[in-house]
Each structure stands twice: as structure tokens, then as C-alpha cells.
């Protein structure tokens, strides 16, 4: 059956992938079919989606972060006369069960791209008198929620191209996102934060992309203050995290302000394991494989924080190479670390995920792209074990974006594949991108504006439409 799926008008690239992931989580076998309402732009918040039944629609909507609501549409039209005709035509056996005298109901008038005054809202509700509502109105906790939604027919909607023709929908709500999660988990009230703590909304989206559900083992190799694992734990995942910075994972800012306290704050189960480890030289036992159901992370890409790996100390004055740690100093020795380029980090991450994910398990991670490059097809790191199922861009500044990659493990890990991946990585590193090397991305993002204008190829380029701002 076709349902109308109305999204919050944010994070546009993330909306459909989230619904598609949740459809898979709730066991809907086929890939989803989408359809746009007449005259709507693909960035419109209104989409029709084909789902097998109401239960599926409700499950998806209630678990999602970006779905405002999924509705069984009783009628639509480009004006109120057409709407009435459509609603009258809609079969009675679909309508009457929700209009009985024992039930309570509520009608909400909503609009996109314009404001409808309270008085106009009341008039529009009165105009629906041709629908035989027998029940009582209950605004707080109705049995059935009905929505009258209007899109405007003029001008530009929140920066979107105009909808050519006004469209009005009337339908019954099947389910909607629980956005109360977001104020609960918002970073500003979290006790222990780092400079790159993941925003709660995005962390939940990542957990949904990773199909987190109770009893799954979820791993974050760059755990930091645990902000991604908090979202995974909220959905029942068993969480594990590693970080190369021991102060972040072990000490935090004191006994009640550390990674553990971030879980305690929300009454979530503590992570199963936290450890200090290097993603470049992971300490997992040989032979351990296919143990994680999902790996979710925000790799250090050198803009807010750079990656580090083991090794690489310059020799101390007077020391003779190769560097050795004197035996009497070993206990308290603090090993030095070397910069860890993004290219190498992604390669290690893919290799780890290929080995350690169960078949069908998901790797969900961010990957940065420079926005000057968006005239060409962006090439993401690839691996034979993985199929890319979604890539969702979030524009962070006029210089760069981050893209949330969702990959599914489709082939078992073998030595041949690992070797092929290593060669592919070398080639990728070669062809691509100086900026994947340490420091270059940072300088591209923070280069002063006057230096850019010297480079006339960039200056003469048309600016991209900018309506997908930080929050859209």
C-alpha cells in the first residue's frame, strides 16, 4: 500500500536511506519503492512510499529520526474541491473504522512553505464536515490523528525550488518519529564531551543506518567520549569502543565525568568493553572474525582532530637507532604516536570491518569531501567485501562536507581480497588526493579566503546552490 511519508526538512540526503535501512531492520524483504507527489521537487519533504502493511509503516516511523509522520492518505488535490472529491471516493471500509462514535480523534492542520493562521486552520477543519466524524475530539491523547497538509504554490520554500502547484493532503497518521529523544540526548546537557563529540541527531541516524537492535555487538574504533555508542546503546546494542588516547577513554574529567558516566546519565547499559588500542595495529587475536554486527565511527580526518597511530618518534638527542625503550623505563613509558593519514586510516578501517563484521553486517562511517570537487563524481574508498548502500552528504562549510557512508558486508574476508584491497588502496592513494594525506585537508578547509581568490579557476566557478545548509 502507498503511504505518504513526510520528512522533517533537514539533512535531506539522510532521509530516504534512513527509511530504507529501517525497512530492512524490520524485515521488509524488497527494496522500497518511492514516488513524488505531482509537481514536487526531489528535495520536497513529501514522498510516497510503498510499504507492505501498516505495522511496517508504524515501526519505521516510530524508530526513525527524520520522519515527521507516515500517513494513510484519504485524499489529495490541488484545491479543496478536488480534495473533497478524492476523500469521498476513498473506500468507506478504509475510513469508517476510524470514525466510530467510541473513538476519539484530533485533526491537525500543517503547512509547508507558508503560515496558516489559527483562524484559517479552524475554518479549514470546519470545511472537512463532509467526513462523518462520529467520535469525540481529544487533543491530548486521541485514538486517531488526522492531518490536513498544504504546500504552497508560490515563491521559494525554505530555499527549495518552488512547488509549481499547490497540493493538499488529508490522511490518517500511522506513526511518527520520537523527536523527544533529541532534547534528552542533546550534547549541551551531556556531562563528558570532547571537541568532536557526535551530535545526538546524527549519532541516532548512524545507529539506524547500522541497523542497531537489542543484543547486537557494535564497535567504534574511534570511540572518544562515546557519543556514537550512546545512541547505539539506546537502541539496545551491546557496545565496544577503542581509542588511541588513553586519557579520553580511561580518565575523562574525573570519576563522574567520563565515558562510563555518559551511559549512566541516560540509564543505558555500560559498554561491554573499552580499551586503548591503535586502529593501525588492532590487538584482536588472529582467527577472531565475524564478531561485530556493526562498526560505527567518525574517523579522525584532520579538520577538527587528526588521527594518530603507533610509532614514529624522532630519536632523542644522543640516542642511537633503532629506538628502544630502556627496560627500567618500560612500566610507565608513554609511547609516542605518529600522524595517521586519512587514506591509511580508511584502508585499515575497511580491512578491520571486512574481517570483523558478520556477513550482512554494516560499516557506517563519515568520510570528508572538499566541495570544490563536487563537479566530479566523488570516489569513495571501496572494498570487495562491501557494497555501498547509502552515501549522505552533510555540508559543513562552503569548503567541505562530510558524507555518511553505509556499507554492507557481502563477501567473506579472504587473503586474496585483503591483498586486492591493499593494491586498490595504493592506487586510490596515488590517484587521489593529496588532501587525504595528513594536514592537507585541514589546510584546504582553513586556508584564508584571500589565498583562494588568487586561484582564478576556483574564483570563476559558479557557486553551487546553497540551500542545503548546515541544518538542511
Amino acid at each position, binding site marked *: 500500500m502507498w503511504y505518504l511519508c513526510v520528512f522533517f526538512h533537514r539533512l535531506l540526503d539522510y532521509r530516504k536511506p534512513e527509511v530504507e535501512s529501517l525497512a530492512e531492520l524490520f524485515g521488509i524483504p524488497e527494496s522500497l519503492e518511492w514516488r513524488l507527489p505531482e509537481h514536487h521537487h526531489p528535495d520536497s519533504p513529501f514522498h510516497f512510499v510503498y510499504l507492505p502493511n501498516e505495522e511496517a509503516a508504524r515501526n519505521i516511523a516510530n524508530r526513525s529520526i527524520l520522519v515527521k509522520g507516515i500517513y494513510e492518505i484519504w485524499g489529495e488535490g490541488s484545491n479543496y474541491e478536488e480534495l473533497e472529491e478524492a476523500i469521498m471516493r476513498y473506500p468507506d471500509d478504509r475510513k469508517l473504522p476510524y470514525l466510530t462514535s467510541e473513538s476519539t480523534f484530533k485533526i491537525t492542520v500543517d503547512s509547508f512553505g507558508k503560515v496558516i493562521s489559527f483562524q484559517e486552520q479552524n475554518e479549514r477543519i470546519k470545511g472537512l464536515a463532509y467526513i462523518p466524524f462520529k467520535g469525540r475530539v481529544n487533543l491530548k491523547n486521541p485514538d486517531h490523528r488526522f492531518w490536513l497538509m498544504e504546500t504552497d504554490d508560490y515563491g521559494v520554500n525554505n530555499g527549495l525550488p518552488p512547488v509549481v502547484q499547490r497540493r493538499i493532503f488529508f490522511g490518517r497518521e500511522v506513526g511518527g518519529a520520537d523527536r523527544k529523544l533529541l532534547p534528552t540526548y542533546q550534547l549541551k546537557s551531556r556531562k563528558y564531551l570532547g571537541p568532536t563529540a557526535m551530535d545526538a541527531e546524527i549519532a541516532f541516524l548512524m545507529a539506524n543506518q547500522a541497523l542497531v537492535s*537489542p*543484543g547486537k*555487538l557494535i564497535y567504534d574504533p574511534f570511540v572518544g567520549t562515546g557519543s556514537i555508542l550512546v545512541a547505539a546503546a539506546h537502541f539496545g546494542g*551491546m557496545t*565496544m569502543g577503542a581509542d*588511541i588516547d*588513553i586519557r579520553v*577513554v*580511561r*580518565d575523562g574529567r574525573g570519576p563522574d565525568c567520563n565515558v562510563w558516566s555518559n551511559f549512566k546519565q541516560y540509564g543505558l*547499559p*555500560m559498554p*561491554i*568493553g*573499552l*580499551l*586503548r*588500542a*591503535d586502529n593501525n*595495529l*588492532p*590487538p*584482536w*587475536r*588472529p582467527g*577472531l572474525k*565475524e*564478531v561485530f554486527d556493526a562498526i560505527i565511527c567518525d574517523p579522525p580526518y584532520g579538520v577538527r582532530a587528526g588521527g594518530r597511530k*603507533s*610509532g*614514529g*618518534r624522532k630519536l632523542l638527542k644522543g640516542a642511537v637507532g*633503532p*629506538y*628502544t*625503550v630502556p627496560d627500567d623505563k*618500560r*612500566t610507565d*613509558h608513554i*609511547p*609516542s604516536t605518529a600522524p595517521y593519514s586519512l587514506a591509511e586510516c580508511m584502508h585499515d578501517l575497511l580491512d578491520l570491518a571486512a574481517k570483523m563484521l558478520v556477513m550482512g553486517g554494516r560499516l557506517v562511517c563519515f568520510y570528508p569531501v572538499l566541495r570544490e570537487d563536487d563537479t566530479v563524481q566523488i570516489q569513495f574508498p571501496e572494498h570487495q567485501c562491501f557494497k555501498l548502500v547509502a552515501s549522505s552528504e552533510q555540508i559543513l562549510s562552503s569548503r567541505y562536507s562530510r558524507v555518511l557512508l553505509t556499507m554492507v558486508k557481502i563477501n567473506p574476508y579472504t587473503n586474496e581480497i585483503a591483498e586486492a584491497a591493499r593494491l586498490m588502496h595504493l592506487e586510490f592513494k596515488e590517484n587521489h588526493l593529496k588532501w587525504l594525506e595528513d594536514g592537507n585537508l585541514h589546510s584546504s578547509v582553513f586556508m584564508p579566503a584571500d589565498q583562494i581568490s588568487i586561484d582564478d579557476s576556483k574564483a570563476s566557478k559558479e557557486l553551487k546552490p546553497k540551500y542545503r545548509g548546515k541544518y538542511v
Partner: protein
Amino acid sequence: MRLLTHNMLSSNIKGVSNGFPLRIEVEKVIEKEVDCNPDFLINMFAKIEWKALVDAARTMGYAELPEEAESSMLDSDEFLRKFHHALLELHLEEGALVCPETGRKFPVNKGIPNMLLHEDEV
């Protein structure tokens, strides 16, 4: 550090061929109650090195696990309870993990194993 983590870790010092299982040096063990999820346990059972878990649990002062285990035992609630306790409720709060080949100690403080290698071990 729970024994599930211990069961997954090895010493990855350069040149070490047999870094598993890490020997546990106990200074302080604590027990934390965790909700039991049988599906998770059944799933994990196939991934666990049983002997390493039995030995580690014994080092931590819990000797209830049978020497040998096979998947048919997962039907028993009693077995699941013991497995759950050993895998997820025993914590090494302070101590060390010792590489079986070189004797290098990986310290465990505040429940966090420090698996980072020194410069000359990479």
C-alpha cells in the same frame, strides 16, 4: 575489562607468533550485574575460545565453568547463567594482561586495558 574483551585480545607485538591468550594478573576484580540476553550469548558462544575463557575466569576467582563446552549446552539455563556471569559480569578493574610469549605487561587501569605498543614493538 570483561572477559569477553579478554577473549578477543592478543599481544600483537612485532615478531610474536603466539600472543593468545593473554595471562591475567589480578590486582582487583569487581562484579557488575548485567542484564542477561540469551540470544547474544548464543551468538557469542560460537566466537569464544572456550578454554581461554575458563582459565581467565578461574584466574579471576570464578571456577564454575565446565572444562569443555559444546553448543548443545546452551539449552541449559544454568549453563547460560554461568557463561553470562563469566563473560560479562566479572571485571578486571586493576591488573595487567601479560603476553604469553614475551612477558610484556599490558596494564589494566580503571577497567581499561592499554594495548598500545611501544615504539620498539611496532
